[in-house]
């Protein structure tokens, strides 16, 4: 048991000198095939490719630490709903004994059904629809926050950041992308906002078509509510459009705080907006910036992928590989059933993303994922909460756009 733990830590010790590993790690002659389903082409290609880089990093870390020999087999879901199932069948035919995927909820559900039939476990790197772990799948393990959990943490961060302010913000307005993700987040936000008794009144919820390119009307409507803070639920492109419109319409609320959306931490956001990106806040699951091994891992990622930022898509994908490696060590076999049993008892304390140990409940959900508050500063996201991982103070209220 002790040697197992040492081995696991070794794998997780990113880039660090490799420690002595238990024999099992090297004894396996043929590499275990790990199938990876990601949308690396099609409309989701951007996020899919970022996630793919995270997978590569995770695999490289495992190799560097002398972990069990694995071979990554990729399958491109092409951002189509029916390819999840096909992808699983293809990967299983190619001899994969455990899978990782599939980034979007539709492909994940489609894949989970095939995994269920093939009795091959799948570690979900990213996919936030709450239903995924509520449908009774037994082969599915999700190391990502479902919308409800994400928003509970996000609302707590927002509450912490606004509680001590004076003047304390009294009102807020929500701008949300009406897609599968935005819909789930909004539903959770309304429920949890009430549960946690946040003393900020949400004046309006303004939705927009996920395909909308022009958000001038939406921003004007939000501005007209006179709310103190803006709560945007976005993808990256619309987040950029929203800030541009705010600058043009000279709207300076006290703060922009996004509950758990992609966008503000991505490089295309900070690049496109420059100084106007600053002070935008978002609460999302994030890597732990105080963990030295994580910091080394982030540095390595950015060195190997010039021009890319290590963010949560890469982070959770990397972690998914580590979860699989850890399970392989304990399973001592390439048999899917053995790997499945090992995944059930996963317990990884030291891992890159902020939060408690990685453990899966009966439904296959990891409930220990933390959520930080990020604020863009000088063109990059900075962790400003909670206190135990914060690298800086919240800047509140935001610096008016015309004073930058």
């Amino acid at each position: 048991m002790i040697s197992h733990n040492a081995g696991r830590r070794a794998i997780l010790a990113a880039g660090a000198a490799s420690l002595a590993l238990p024999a099992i790690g090297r004894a396996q002659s043929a590499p275990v095939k790990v199938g990876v389903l990601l949308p690396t082409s099609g409309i989701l290609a951007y996020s899919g490719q970022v996630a793919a880089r995270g997978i590569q990093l995770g695999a490289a870390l495992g190799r560097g630490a002398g972990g069990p020999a694995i071979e990554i087999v990729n399958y491109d879901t092409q951002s189509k709903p029916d390819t999840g199932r096909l992808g699983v069948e293809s990967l299983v035919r190619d001899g994969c004994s455990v899978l990782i995927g599939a980034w979007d909820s539709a492909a994940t559900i489609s894949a989970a059904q095939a995994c269920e039939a093939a009795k091959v476990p799948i570690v979900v790197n990213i996919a936030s629809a709450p239903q995924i772990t509520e449908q009774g799948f037994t082969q599915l393990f999700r190391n990502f926050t479902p919308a409800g959990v994400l928003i509970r943490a996000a609302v707590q961060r927002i509450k912490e950041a606004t509680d001590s302010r004076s003047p304390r913000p009294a009102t807020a307005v929500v701008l949300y992308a009406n897609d599968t993700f935005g819909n789930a987040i909004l539903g959770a936000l309304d429920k949890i906002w009430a549960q946690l008794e946040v003393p900020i009144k949400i004046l309006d919820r303004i939705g927009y078509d996920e395909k909308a390119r022009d958000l001038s009307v939406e921003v004007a409507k939000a501005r007209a509510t006179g709310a103190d803070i803006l709560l945007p639920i976005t993808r990256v492109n619309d987040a950029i459009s929203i800030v541009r419109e705010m600058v043009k319409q000279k709207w300076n609320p006290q703060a922009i705080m996004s509950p758990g959306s992609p966008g503000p931490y991505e490089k295309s956001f900070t690049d496109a907006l420059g100084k106007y990106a600053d002070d935008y806040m978002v609460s999302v699951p994030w890597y732990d910036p105080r963990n030295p091994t994580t910091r080394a891992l982030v540095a390595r990622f950015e060195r190997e992928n010039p021009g890319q930022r290590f963010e949560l898509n890469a982070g959770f994908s990397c972690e998914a590989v580590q979860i699989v490696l850890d399970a392989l060590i304990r399973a001592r076999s390439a048999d899917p059933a053995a790997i499945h049993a090992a995944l059930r008892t996963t317990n990884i304390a030291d891992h890159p993303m902020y939060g408690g140990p990685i453990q899966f409940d009966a439904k296959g959900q990891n409930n220990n994922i933390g959520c930080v508050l990020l604020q863009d500063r000088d063109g990059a996201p900075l962790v400003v909460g909670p206190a135990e991982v914060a690298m800086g103070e919240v800047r509140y209220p935001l610096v008016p756009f015309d004073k930058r």
Partner: protein
Amino acid sequence: MQVDRRLGWIAGAALFAGCAIAAPWLDGFTMSLLTLVFLFAWFGQASNLAMGFTGQLSLGHALFAGLGGYAVVIITTRYGLSPWFGLLIGMPIAAAAGAAIGWLAFRFGVRDVYFALLAIAVAEMMRVIFSNWNFVGGTGGIFLPALSPTNEPLRTLRGGALFYYAAALFLATAGTALLAWLRGARIGYLWRALRDDEAAARALGVRAPLHKILACAISAAMTALGGALYAHLNGVIFPDSMMGMALSIQIIIGPILGGLGTVFGPLVGALVVVPLGEISGTLGQSLGISGMNSIGYGLALILLIGLLPGGLWPAIVAGVQSLWRRR
């Protein structure tokens, strides 16, 4: 045309029987791929009925697939009723929608590219409405629960890979037989007469609107049935994936490539188009260039459509015919 008929029956019967018998020996991947082939063959036959037999380019067939899929999924997940009941509701709704579009087109004289856009407009409007309609789950969609171990496929219309394979194979066979029958039946002649020369057909007393609307309605109902199976196969339904333009385009590529207006064209088209998508995906993956899949697929479409003027099936028939003569 004699060869067309005979070759079709022999090849079709051999294919369907072969696929049914081969089922136990197919690996999971091939079975899933063939499931999609047969499902899209059925979709193809449905749009073949609307396009090939009556000459209307419909770019809105995803609407009917979506209506069928949503009806079944809502009936089963919300009300716990039988999916058969869902079909009983969904297919007439889709047929009514198809008939309404057909009637509007006739009543206001909308033809050709205008008809295609009429269908797009209705389908896209419904997609936006479904995206904003909480009762149908909005953009959040509806997820199907995992199957219980005691699942009975014929009762839930859901099952494992073999069930979907069998169901899709059944649909493709039935669809092809239906089209063959319709082609020879009186109504088939009327449809083709309308397609080839509407004015002449009407002068001879063919009741154009009624027949065209009937074709639209049958086509829509067939698509709805396929949509229900597609939703079950995917395990989840969203307005975007089930009612979007992308599915509409995917549905009609097969029959056009295979040979519009022929009985076996849609089947042959699906046999080529679906694996082509998969092969081009693998191509992009193995070259490590994302985008290669789309380039490969697009080039293949251009080549096929350029080299085979009437579609794949007529080309096969012509090939066999010339072999025949040489003998």
